[in-house]
């Protein structure tokens, strides 16, 4: 949490004030050793399962570039800033660029690239001895951080190659370059007295990755050998201008790792979610009924079928993530039962250790719930086989998509899908490693990512206490980051204490706020009340419209405009946190908070944060988008007209393809029937009365 807003700070400058450091006047050619783990890992350490992911990622460091160069600016400063921003978006702490000299290569057989983009990823905080997760986590920072460097190396080099330029990713253990020399030359690190590299502003260890390329980049100068790595300047220390304050380490140290950085323990817990769930009325649904699958099968028409496999990867950045997202699926794990294990009997300790592990690997929120049978899909979509519920527990995690990029975007322009894919990719990586770890401990476990999932995430998110149902409908909302997240789940038989659902007053808030509905480009979010849908109380969005728009729109890649527009999509500042607390604890303030959100212009695009190139992949080449770019800000005052014309459809199980239907069979969407069902949908109040006894949760 920052004291000062960073909304005037260009994204390519990164979260730390690199620009405030003294630089050497000329390039220097020294190197240094990278920081190592401070202590040995235990036999149960997570580092034991990371190598298979590093090995997978290593396959995608190099490839041929696209056959034509993208129409990007020739100015090397613009290019360097753009590439740095891409690295910061993937959570690099520091990024610099330099030229590669011939003797930087450690092998004769090398691609002879001339430029390097060097990124630093900081170690994560480890638990203290005796704290939850210590035996799994301590001594694993090198493995964890090299994995992250490998991820960045694959994605960034893939991005540059998709733009038609040669590029190769490098990280420790898989490189032909002296990474230390490049880190020094690009000004992101400096050799210390003992020969170990030191990085400015970073008090923990770190690892380094590099993209080598012939894409011309403006170079940075090395850090001055006699300059401070953390200037004695109150503005820098306090983070004036929006950089991370020096106090962040103390703040983090004040909380156990397993609680995460957001104080979810301060949010009220309830026995049942704030929205009605009638478990005995929930019909399990086949994966074939998911609307992205329906699009792939042709149920939504030819355009949606054609675009389904392209829409999320239309930008070269998202395309750079595709190899990892797709190829992590075979590592996701097993459904098979394992023989009973005698160890790990303390369910509370197990849950806390799992949470600590999730946070260590980079999740923003971790919760645990029962993997109830109704959370599993009923049938597979490829061959139609039935799916039986197989694990007892679900570990549910949210990955923040990041405020800054949301701030710069319309929500449905050319960065939109990359925002989603980054979070999906990171989530799959974290959940995959955690599931592998559980299996190594002797417990069956399987990750459920966006690329392959056999559980429906939303009920798990709800039951694990990470979010409440929001007006957006099929996107749930967390009090600290709003709807701005992607989820990942892994199911397991590792026994854990489960969390309870949360109540932070959202049902009352969303009852008063119509902003996501007003700003939806396809009028798919309801202006009306909640309805009952397959046993759930929900503001039901029109998923046919939403899916069609995300898949077939031509002026951007996918859409997350509802997330961008939500008043709970706030900057991570002290002031925004105070506003969040008032939204939670002061029902009387909510109407004013909603009104003020519009009056302050929240939801307009912030040009300072527009760091990406508008590009579209067409037949394997990145080109200027043919149809242009969605340019949207606020559409004030049109709620009533939109509400009057809105006719939504819903598609409960009886309007979905039957279990056993495969993706090779087309089952056209029956929209008229769906529209009729929406008008006939049961109200939650009527459902409560019908089932008896389930009292409506009063606004919290």
């Amino acid at each position, binding site marked *: 949490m920052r004291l000062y807003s960073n909304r005037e700070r260009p994204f390519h400058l990164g979260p730390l004030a690199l620009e405030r450091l003294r630089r050497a006047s000329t390039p220097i050619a020294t190197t240094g050793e990278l920081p190592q783990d401070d202590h040995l890992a235990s036999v149960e350490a997570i580092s034991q399962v990371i190598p298979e992911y590093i090995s997978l990622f290593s396959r995608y460091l190099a490839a041929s570039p696209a056959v034509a160069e993208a129409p990007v600016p020739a100015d090397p400063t613009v290019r360097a800033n753009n590439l740095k921003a891409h690295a910061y978006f993937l959570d690099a702490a520091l990024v610099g660029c330099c030229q590669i000299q011939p003797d930087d290569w450690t092998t004769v057989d090398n691609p002879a690239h001339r430029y390097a983009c060097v990124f630093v990823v900081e170690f994560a905080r480890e638990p203290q001895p005796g704290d939850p997760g210590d035996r799994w986590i301590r001594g694993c920072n090198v493995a964890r951080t090299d994995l992250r460097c490998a991820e960045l190396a694959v994605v960034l080099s893939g991005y540059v190659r998709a733009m038609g330029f040669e590029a190769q990713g490098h990280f420790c253990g898989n490189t032909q370059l002296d990474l230390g020399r490049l880190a020094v030359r690009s000004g992101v690190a400096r050799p210390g007295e003992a020969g170990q590299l030191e990085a400015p502003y970073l008090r923990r260890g770190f690892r380094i990755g590099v993209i080598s390329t012939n894409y011309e980049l403006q170079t940075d100068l090395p850090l001055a050998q006699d300059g401070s790595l953390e200037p004695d300047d109150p503005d820098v220390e306090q983070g004036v201008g929006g950089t991370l304050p020096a106090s962040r380490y103390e703040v983090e140290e004040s909380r156990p790792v397993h609680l995460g950085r957001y104080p979810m323990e301060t949010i009220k817990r309830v026995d049942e979610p704030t929205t009605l769930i009638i478990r005995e009325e929930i019909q399990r649904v086949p994966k074939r009924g998911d609307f992205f699958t329906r699009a792939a099968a042709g149920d939504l028409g030819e355009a949606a079928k054609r675009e389904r496999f392209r829409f999320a990867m239309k930008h070269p950045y998202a395309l750079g993530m595709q190899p990892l997202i797709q190829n992590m699926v075979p590592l996701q794990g097993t459904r098979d039962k394992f023989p009973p294990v005698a160890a790990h009997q303390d369910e509370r300790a197990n849950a806390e250790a799992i949470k600590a592990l999730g946070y260590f690997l980079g999740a923003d929120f971790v919760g645990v719930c029962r993997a109830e049978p109704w959370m599993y899909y009923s049938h597979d979509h490829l061959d139609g086989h039935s799916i039986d519920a197989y694990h007892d527990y679900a570990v549910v995690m949210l990955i923040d998509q990041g405020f800054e990029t949301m701030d710069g975007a319309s929500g449905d322009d050319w960065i939109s899908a990359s925002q989603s894919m980054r979070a999906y990719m990171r989530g799959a990586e974290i959940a995959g490693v955690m599931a592998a770890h559980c299996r190594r401990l002797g417990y069956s476990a399987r990750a459920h990512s966006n690329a392959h999932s056999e559980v429906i995430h939303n009920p798990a998110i709800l039951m694990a206490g990470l979010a409440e149902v929001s007006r957006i409908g099929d996107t749930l909302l967390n009090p600290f980051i709003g709807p701005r997240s992607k989820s990942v789940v892994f199911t397991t038989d590792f026994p854990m204490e489960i969390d309870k659902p949360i109540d932070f007053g959202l049902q009352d808030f969303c009852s008063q706020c119509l902003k996501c509905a007003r700003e939806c*480009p396809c009028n798919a979010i309801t202006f009306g009340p909640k309805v009952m849908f397959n046993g759930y109380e929900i503001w039901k969005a029109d998923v046919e419209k939403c899916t069609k*728009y995300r898949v077939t729109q031509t002026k951007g890649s996918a859409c997350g405009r509802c997330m961008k527009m939500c008043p709970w999509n706030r900057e991570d500042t002290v002031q925004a946190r105070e506003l969040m607390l008032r939204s939670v604890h002061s029902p009387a303030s909510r109407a004013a908070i909603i009104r003020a959100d519009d009056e302050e212009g929240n939801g307009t695009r912030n040009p300072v944060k527009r760091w990406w190139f508008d590009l579209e992949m067409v037949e394997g080449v990145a080109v200027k988008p043919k*149809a242009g770019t*969605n340019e949207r800000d606020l559409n004030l005052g049109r709620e009533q007209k939109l509400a*009057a*014309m809105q*006719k939504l459809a819903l598609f409960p199980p009886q309007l979905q393809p039957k279990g056993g239907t495969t993706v090779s069979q087309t089952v056209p969407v029956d929209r008229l029937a769906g529209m009729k069902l929406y008008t006939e949908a049961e109200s939650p109040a009527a459902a409560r009365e019908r089932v008896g006894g389930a009292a409506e949760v009063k606004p919290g």
Partner: protein
Amino acid sequence: MISTDVLIKAADLPIPAECGGCCLCATCHVYVEPDWLERLPGIEQDESNTLLEAIAARDNSRLACQIRMTVALDGLRLRLAPVP
């Protein structure tokens, strides 16, 4: 082929065409002059469904995003319908 909502926008006329041609929002609703109605390609089911959401729809209502401009439509006359 360019759809007529793009041409209307290019002429700086007030047509939101919010969903950009996806046939989802009915904010490119237009009235077709009667003598041109028969000469347009027929209405597909998607357009027909979305026109259910149009404000003040009439028998000659169409969505501009679904009318692709061709030489045969040179001289086409449309009126902008009320939209949010």
